[in-house]
């Protein structure tokens, strides 16, 4: 049974590949009915599928393909001219075949699909134009076989209608012929003075050596006419295809389960994270051990690891790449069907189908493209009469091309149809209440084109079954945006419309801009970032409750990232802010952030089932320091921004009212002592002990900052040493002063550094007093008392 499953899997994979190719060939065949190469190719597909399916006992499929084969065989012999009507039936039968194959894939059996109607139609064509499908038909192709077309499978068909004995006899006869043919060939070659290879040439080679269209090449010539179906005996009637393949450049490929590749990709993701971390550590080490010799070596190793990781990532990404042609393949057929349905004349030009994309994207991109192309056919390209009236060519053209542009792939769909009418779009949107009168007036042409992507918008005057399927272009947009892609439209009336889909090469690892807001960091996909600008807060204007700024000659609406993600404001932003200009198609938005951290390669991780669907968050990534950073969903963010009230200019004074409680006793005063020397801390403790204040000790800046942030104590003053490990006194003071609520906390430097520049630095970082060691206990005590407004009545 397992073996059967295995065979079945192989059969399905092979068949789907064949069928995919088939669509393209058939459409081409219609314009080139004479092309024998094509006809043979198509015939072989039907034939191969028939052979394999009969072997697997798929009776319905066998039945259908058998009848298809009959027709195609006739066409191939010139007994039947492929008219569009016949083509319709053939295409219908291929659709059925696909359906059957899908059924087999899902259920391992081909029951449940009705092929009778189609078979009847096939038979009708068969019966109408040529011989009926009976055993007597067997000799019929024979005369044709003598015709210039010297294809091997001619007799294939007949085997099915022969009795077993007949088949045996036929095989014997063919074998005989084959042998004599080989002999003749060998003799001919010897005669021609060629060396004869040990083994007789395989049928494939013979065919390969023979240019596909007749006349046959001289060496084989003597043998040929006498053996109409000479090189076929070994195929036994079921495996015809391999025998006639043009010798293909041997492709060295292995089929790999996608799961394995996904796993590999995940591992690479981990490696990229580790690499980022390594780079960060390297930077830290560099800072600390500046000038040490081993640094150079470390640097080298880090850069090699980082280089190799990047290469590895690209290499693995490439294994997942598929040519976008896999998707493009189905469009010629679609256009053909549409042209017949809509009575238009449309030509499809495809280019760049070799451009490669990640497998997961290739799978996702099909439907949006179908929709766009349907739209172009239905709404874009005019009727032939209209086109002629406009002085255009009768046949409309849709160009579908793919190309790489930086880290993105661009899929461009151009039509030379009537173009998008801006006024019409606006009126329509007004009618449907999608936009307001005012919005319509302010809209640029580009923004107006974007209207077709709004939910509830359909420009078709009447709903046709082509593009009015209840799903609008808005679905296209959502799907493309799901892939982190963007759509760009350009159009000119009566010249045409051009749509560009810009899609990242891969989904898993992206370039991101890391921004900081307060103490948090967020990652913004770099693909959506157009530019960043530094502005001073007075460049921000408020219009109707919304913040805007002037960026060159445009007005850009602004939103603070903190307002979107409910970030608590504890640090004052200062006079300057950074604006990250986000662009999505025609839409633009300025996102105000506190700091720009930098550009980094990030690995997208899902937040999981528990936290899915958080507005504005697309996922998370793990940073070099091991922390988690959330990734901004730019599409959602643009939507949220519309409803967020401006608070950009609002000062965050509210936190200051966390005011000091009334002091009722000396121990209500809390003072932190920050010094790395235990002795120094004890001296300070001794000096302040007598007045009875509460004392908290920290041994370095980092610890002091942590104690402060925990908020267990309300400090009234801090005594800070300057020289400390981990974080020195200046840095600590600067950090503390970033917080609004510590704006007024007196910081007193206690240090043995006495230089003027030291004092200046102290003042710059926010220290209010500067006590130099050694000091008297009384002096320290009095300075502290003065700074905390110590009430004298507590002094005993």
């Amino acid at each position, binding site marked *: 049974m397992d073996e059967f499953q295995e065979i079945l899997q192989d059969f399905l994979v092979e068949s789907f590949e064949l069928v995919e190719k088939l669509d393209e060939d058939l459409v081409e065949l219609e314009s080139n009915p004479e092309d024998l190469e094509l006809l043979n190719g198509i015939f072989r597909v039907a034939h191969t599928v028939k052979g394999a399916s009969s072997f697997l006992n798929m009776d319905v499929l066998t039945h259908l393909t058998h009848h298809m084969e009959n027709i195609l065989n006739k066409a191939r012999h010139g007994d039947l001219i492929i008219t569009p009507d016949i083509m319709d039936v053939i295409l219908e039968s291929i659709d059925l075949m696909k359906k059957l194959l899908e059924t087999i894939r899902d259920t391992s059996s081909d029951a449940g699909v009705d092929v009778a109607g189609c078979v009847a139609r096939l038979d009708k064509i068969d019966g109408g134009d040529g011989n009926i499908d009976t055993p007597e038909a067997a000799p019929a192709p024979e005369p044709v076989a003598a015709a210039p077309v010297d294809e091997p499978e001619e007799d294939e068909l007949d085997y099915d209608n022969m009795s077993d004995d007949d088949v045996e006899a036929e095989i014997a006869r063919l074998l005989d012929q084959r042998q004599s043919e080989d002999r003749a060939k060998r003799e001919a070659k010897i005669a021609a003075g060629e060396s004869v290879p040990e083994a007789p040439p395989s049928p494939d080679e013979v065919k390969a050596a023979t240019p596909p269209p007749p006349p046959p090449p001289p060496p084989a010539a003597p043998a040929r006419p006498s053996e109409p179906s000479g090189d076929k005996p070994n195929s036994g009637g079921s495996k015809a295809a391999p025998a006639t393949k043009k010798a293909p450049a041997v492709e060295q490929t292995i089929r790999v389960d996608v799961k394995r590749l996904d796993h590999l990709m995940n591992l690479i993701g981990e490696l990229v*994270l580790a690499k980022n971390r390594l780079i960060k550590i390297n930077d830290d080490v560099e800072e600390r051990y500046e000038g040490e010799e081993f640094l150079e070596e470390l640097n080298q190793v880090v850069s090699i690891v980082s280089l190799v990781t990047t290469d590895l990532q690209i290499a693995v990404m490439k294994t997942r790449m598929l040519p976008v042609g896999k998707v493009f393949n189905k469009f010629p057929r679609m256009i053909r069907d549409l042209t017949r349905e809509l009575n238009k004349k449309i030509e499809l030009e495809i280019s760049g189908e070799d451009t490669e994309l990640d497998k997961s994207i290739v799978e996702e991109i099909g439907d949006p493209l179908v929709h766009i192309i349907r739209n172009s056919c239905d709404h874009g390209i005019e009727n032939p009469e209209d086109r002629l009236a406009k002085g255009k060519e009768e046949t409309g053209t849709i160009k579908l091309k793919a190309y790489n542009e930086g880290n993105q792939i661009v899929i461009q769909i151009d039509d030379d149809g009537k173009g998008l009418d801006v006024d019409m779009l606006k009126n329509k949107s007004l009618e449907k209440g999608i936009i307001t009168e005012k919005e319509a007036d302010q809209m640029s042409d580009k923004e107006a084109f974007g209207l077709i992507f709004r939910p509830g918008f359909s420009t078709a005057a009447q709903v046709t079954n082509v593009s009015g399927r209840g799903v609008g272009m808005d679905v296209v947009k959502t799907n493309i945006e799901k892939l982190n892609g963007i759509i760009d439209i350009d159009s000119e009336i009566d010249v045409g419309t051009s749509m560009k889909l810009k899609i990242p090469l891969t989904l898993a690892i992206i370039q991101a801009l890391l921004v900081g807001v307060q103490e948090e960091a967020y990652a913004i996909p770099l693909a959506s970032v157009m530019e960043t600008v530094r502005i001073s807060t007075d460049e921000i204007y408020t219009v109707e409750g919304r913040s805007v700024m002037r960026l060159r000659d445009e007005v850009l609406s602004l939103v603070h990232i903190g307002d979107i993600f*409910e970030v608590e404001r504890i640090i004052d932003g200062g006079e300057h802010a950074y604006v990250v200009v986000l662009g999505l198609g025609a839409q633009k938005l300025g996102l105000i952030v506190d700091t720009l951290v930098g550009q980094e390669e990030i690995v997208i991780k899902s937040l*999981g089932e528990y936290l899915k669907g958080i507005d504005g968050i697309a996922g998370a990534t793990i940073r070099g320091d091991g922390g988690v950073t959330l990734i901004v969903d730019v599409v959602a963010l643009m939507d949220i921004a519309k409803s967020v009230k401006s608070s950009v200019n609002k000062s965050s004074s509210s936190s200051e009212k966390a005011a000091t409680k009334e002091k009722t006793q000396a121990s209500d005063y809390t003072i932190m002592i920050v010094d790395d020397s235990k002795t120094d801390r004890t001296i300070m403790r001794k000096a302040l002990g007598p007045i009875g204040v509460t004392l908290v000790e920290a041994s370095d800046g980092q610890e002091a900052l942590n104690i402060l942030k925990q908020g267990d104590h309300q400090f009234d003053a801090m005594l800070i040493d300057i020289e400390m490990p981990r974080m020195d006194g200046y840095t600590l003071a600067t950090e503390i002063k970033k917080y609004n609520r510590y704006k007024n906390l007196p910081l007193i430097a206690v240090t043995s550094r006495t230089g003027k520049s030291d004092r200046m630095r102290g003042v710059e970082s926010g220290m209010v007093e500067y006590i130099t060691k050694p000091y008297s206990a009384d002096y320290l005590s009095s300075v502290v008392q003065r700074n905390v407004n110590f009430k004298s009545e507590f002094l005993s």
Partner: protein
Amino acid sequence: MSDKLKDVINKQNDQQNQDDAIDQLDDIVQLVGFIIGDEEYAVPILSIQEIIKPFSWTRVPQVPPYVKGVFNMRGAVIPLIDLRLKFGLAEQKHNDETRFIVMKHEDEVAGFVIDRLTMALRIKKENIGPAPDTINSDDTLIDGVGQEEDRIITILKPDKLLERDF
């Protein structure tokens, strides 16, 4: 010599099997107990992936207060849920006894903040009573109430804990 060894091994195996048999007979449930507020709770030991000391996490917007955010556990991004807040208690500063219990049910994984661990428990099934009737049995987080000596332990359902309820 080797026969002797075999004998010993066989004997050991027998004994082991007997032990197992007793376990099965007694239907013992293995749990890990922990304290939240003043109460002792427990979850099945097999639902626990690991227990770790607290470390830093990243806040996530637009979630209820009891979802503290997400943290990085060896490369996986995992939500962190504060059970004190979830059970309606006031927030407490993390201290030396605070732990994150990482629980797993099917594909769902999340970390839960608890006040402190007590111990691994083996409670006989017969000593576990149903959740009090006053609690709606479909929605409750409570699987049952176990008695161990003089203690009463509320046994929680990991699948319910890991279910998103906002």
